[in-house]
């Protein structure tokens, strides 16, 4: 049953849907995150305010910021950032795109999975300065306007999440998995999704969602 979003006290933190208001159902709130495109223009504006808030102070005589242009979900974003800023932190802390999640920050969970030139990578273990000229796709870039990406739709249909924190990474990973074409059986889906840990253990439903999204007819 749908619960009021209020009961998910931290929902706005992990979904990035900062406009979650009382009365919006959990399902709706998550569906919004999955679409995400809607809130994004607002979020990229607040991004500027947050800049610097969570960064450690630069070390003495540290090299200063460098300019890098990132192509994210079809839009060019020019940033002045230190070379040590990971792609994940550039997205979240500098661009205010909270769809991509930080779980472990060490390549061990997959929450930060994004697509770089169509290939899935852990955005926590790559630097933003390594990606000028690359096409970066995040969870916010998958939907086509109001039409969900088939993988997003399948995740909702199969209830393939509980808390939703791993979900953006799971979905980006599944989009790449389908394109790669190495998984046919459920066992192969599990193996090819192994880089995405779900702390809630929603694996059964995730496999069902990926299996459905894999069908040629969608």
């Amino acid at each position, binding site marked *: 049953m749908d619960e009021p979003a209020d009961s998910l006290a931290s929902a706005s933190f992990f979904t990035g849907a900062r406009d979650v208001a009382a009365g919006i159902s959990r399902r709706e709130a998550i569906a919004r995150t999955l679409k995400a495109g809607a809130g994004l223009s607002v979020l990229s504006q607040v991004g500027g305010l947050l800049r610097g808030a969570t960064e*450690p102070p*630069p*070390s003495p005589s*540290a*090299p200063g910021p*460098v300019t890098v242009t990132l192509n994210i979900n079809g839009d060019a974003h020019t940033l002045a950032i*230190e*070379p*040590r800023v*990971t792609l994940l932190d550039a997205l979240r802390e500098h661009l205010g795109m909270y769809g991509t999640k930080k779980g472990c*920050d*060490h*390549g061990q969970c*997959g929450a930060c*999975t994004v697509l770089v030139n169509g*290939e*899935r*990578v*852990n955005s926590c*273990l*790559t*630097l933003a*300065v*390594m990606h000028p000229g690359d096409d970066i796709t995040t969870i916010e870039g998958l939907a086509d306007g109001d039409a969900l990406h088939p993988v997003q739709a399948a995740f909702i249909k199969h209830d393939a999440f509980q808390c939703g924190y791993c979900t953006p990474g799971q979905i980006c*990973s599944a989009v*790449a*998995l389908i394109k*790669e074409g*190495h998984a046919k059986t459920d066992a192969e889906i*599990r*193996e*090819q999704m*192994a*880089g*995405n*840990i779900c702390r809630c253990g929603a694996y059964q439903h995730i496999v069902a969602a990926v299996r459905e999204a894999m069908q040629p007819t969608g």
Partner: protein
Amino acid sequence: MNNFSYILAAQPDEALRDWTGPGRPAYLAGGTNLIDHIKLGVDQPQRLIDVRNLGLDQIEALPGGGLRIGATVSNTALAYDERVLKDYPVLSQAILSGASPQLRNAATTAGNLLQRTRCSYFRDGLSPCNKRQTGSGCAALGGFNRTHAVLGTSERCIATHPSDMDVAMITLDAVVRLRGVSGERTVPLQDFYVAYGEDPAKENVLKPGELITAVDLPATEWFARSYYFKARDRASYEFALASAAVALDLREGLVRDCRIALGGVATKPWRAHAAENALKGTRPTEQAFRAAANAELSSAVPRAHNGFKIELCRGTLMQALQTTAALA
């Protein structure tokens, strides 16, 4: 995370030139090990030189047969290469048994060869660790050493080399191509890694600033009969507790030649010479497989928590040999 400057080198010679200069340099490839270490404080380079754009990202057929694998070929591209799948299946299997699809997409051939141990005392950045801080001691010796090595250890360090890919490459007689300011040289992969000596931070023969440019695999027909088997705490996305890479030349019911290497149990990707010698010329029976495993593991040294690895490794190697012998 310490700060550093970043430069993208366009040619190998440029990267070598960039190496010299003030501040500690480090080459950066996929970053899946190096950036992790910088975050942990295990490594604190001041200048990163990105080597992904040096034109070393191809897998080429060598004129006399065999393959040249560029240093920055991704682990994914290598694992799914048609020639690798057909002629060196053990390599494909080993790579695909490691890490995750995301990590394999970013990880490179050279980065995989040079990845450091997963010893938790090394990674915590605090404990006494001869590998991280020369002469500081080894917290693992008297600590929780369940995942540590039983082969090749010393009283200074008992850390395992974590790679799967390298274990397979050792069985395939891989040769590493290196380039430094004074020119190029080649080193067989099994001589590339060194035994732990006075300073366990010294893991290989790479000189400061030297670049890995490629790994060559020879054309050896019977390497097509090869296989990788890995035992670990969970079914995927986990490092080996014990693993075995095997290639067998079976003719007229006899093991004419073989290559065997072990992972997860040794301080370096471990070429199992004693096991190979025990197996050569025998009939491929369970008894022969057990004798081969015993020959290699008789020198194993267990610590307080990792004694189980000896038995696990015996079973892992026997399973790998049995499966390889049964291949069509």
